[in-house]
């Protein structure tokens, strides 16, 4: 057995530099690929608007079918906000402001963010798996050979549906959440019903709070749907490949939503009223 020749000094450092370089190049290439994919998807969008019935089918699949989990989650989050808000506010004798606290928390932050996280888990994974399996079953290749562009026929309607569905789901989440806060605060803990709704009406601004919340969830809609479609379309056409792509959809979407939320919040709410 011959022993390998001794490595020259500094080889480990060179290895490290090479690995970091390779990692950077891989990631840059990935980003470029994402950008190209986005441009091609955007170019395919007019086709989706031209055949809106395809979008409606997808709105049902990823929007309507996500409503139960969104509404159920909204209700429980509303309950918890009611309880926690009451506990904190009553220490300062401001329990009547519970309605305002619940509404602002939901429309500004929790509605868009939690909806997007649930959307990534419920609708994003189903989009990725569906498209990945279409690829594995050669359905996308068959489409191309029939001179039909899968980006226009398969991806664009799903993208439009995702971007439309997200703000609507977030609105449902917030509305049900506020109802949950009402149930806990007014019906169970005995806060004055007039105060609950009155303070909310007084303190929530349509543009600054509700409008910005809607903008947030539209951005999340773009991000989550794009990630799900990209991962599905670029997945390896094997069972392991689709499984990995589905996992990546949840991880990347969730991180993107949290990061984007910070950036958007900083942009929208950093200036005092």
């Amino acid at each position, binding site marked *: 057995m011959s022993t390998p020749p001794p490595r020259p000094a500094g080889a480990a450092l060179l290895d490290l530099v090479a690995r970091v370089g390779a990692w950077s190049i891989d990631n840059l290439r990935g980003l470029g690929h994402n950008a190209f994919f986005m441009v091609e998807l955007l170019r395919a969008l007019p086709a989706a608007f031209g055949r809106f019935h395809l979008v409606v089918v997808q709105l049902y699949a990823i929007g309507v079918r996500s409503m139960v989990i969104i509404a159920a989650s909204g209700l429980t989050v509303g309950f918890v906000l009611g309880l926690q808000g009451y506990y904190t506010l009553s220490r300062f004798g401001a329990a009547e402001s519970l309605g305002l606290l619940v509404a602002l928390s939901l429309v500004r932050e929790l509605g868009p963010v939690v909806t997007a996280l649930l959307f990534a888990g419920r609708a994003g994974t189903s989009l990725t798996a569906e498209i990945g399996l*279409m690829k594995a079953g*050669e359905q996308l*290749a*068959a489409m*191309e050979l029939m*001179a039909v562009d899968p980006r226009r*026929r398969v991806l664009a309607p799903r993208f439009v549906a995702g971007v439309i569905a997200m703000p609507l789901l977030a609105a449902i989440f917030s509305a049900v959440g506020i109802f949950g806060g009402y149930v806990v605060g007014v019906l169970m803990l005995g806060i004055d019903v007039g105060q609950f709704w009155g303070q909310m009406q007084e303190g929530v601004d349509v543009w600054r709070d509700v409008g910005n919340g809607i903008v947030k969830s539209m951005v999340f809609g773009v991000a989550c749907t794009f990630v799900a479609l990209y991962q599905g379309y670029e997945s390896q056409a094997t069972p392991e490949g689709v499984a990995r792509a589905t996992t990546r959809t949840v991880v990347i979407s969730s991180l993107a939503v949290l990061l984007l939320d910070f950036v958007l919040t900083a942009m929208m709410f950093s200036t005092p009223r």
Partner: protein
Amino acid sequence: MADDFIHVDDVSFGYEAGRPILSEVSARFQRGKVTAIMGGSGCGKTTLLRLIAGAYAADRGRIVFDGEVVDARDKAQLFRLRRRLGMLFQFGALFTDLSVFDNVAFPLREQSNLPESMIRDIVLMKLNAVGLRGAAGLRIAEVSGGMMRRIALARAIALDPELILYDEPFAGLDPISMGVIANLIRRLNDATGATSLIVSHDVHECFLICDQAYLISNGRIVAHGTPDELRASAEPEVRQFINGEPDGPVRFHYPAAPIEQELGVRR
């Protein structure tokens, strides 16, 4: 030659650099004929079919589609040429979210402006041709493998293509379904006057229905001719393939070091 619909001219191709799948392949596929491309698994026959359909660009050589050189980078040309061809995929590649009827109607709805009433009539006629008019309302999950292949065939011929590509049309089918598909391929070809290319390793079924056959081994064309000519061939590779002999010019063993050396045994 005027009656060549597809002309493959000295084509070489590999998915990765340094690992060629096809080497200097030349072939002519005559208009209105059924031509089989045969060879063992992994010999490059499906790759040749995909090169003809423009799914990949050849590394060298050219493919001429009815007098027009195929350029896989020219999307407009590809989409134009692909409207003239139908392809039957190995496992059907049917759209699982659509019904049998909607699968066959798919190319008509996407590529034509025909009214829905006419699409309905065409789809029912195509399904009738493959014997599945009664299954029009079923979902894809409800049909058998043999039926799937026939539905995919009805979809491939929905637009009456001039060229029909069949990728392993007999793979994984029971003997009855195999006979049905073989019969359909020949009948549809004769009825529509299309040019058919069949990629398969099923010697018996192919020889029953094809006019010409090419035999590919290790990415090269090793023989071609009519089924009778190939049956009479004395070439060892042709004989091994047609008779299904396990060892011969195509080795049973993947290249490896001698087994004695691998196991550490001395002779």
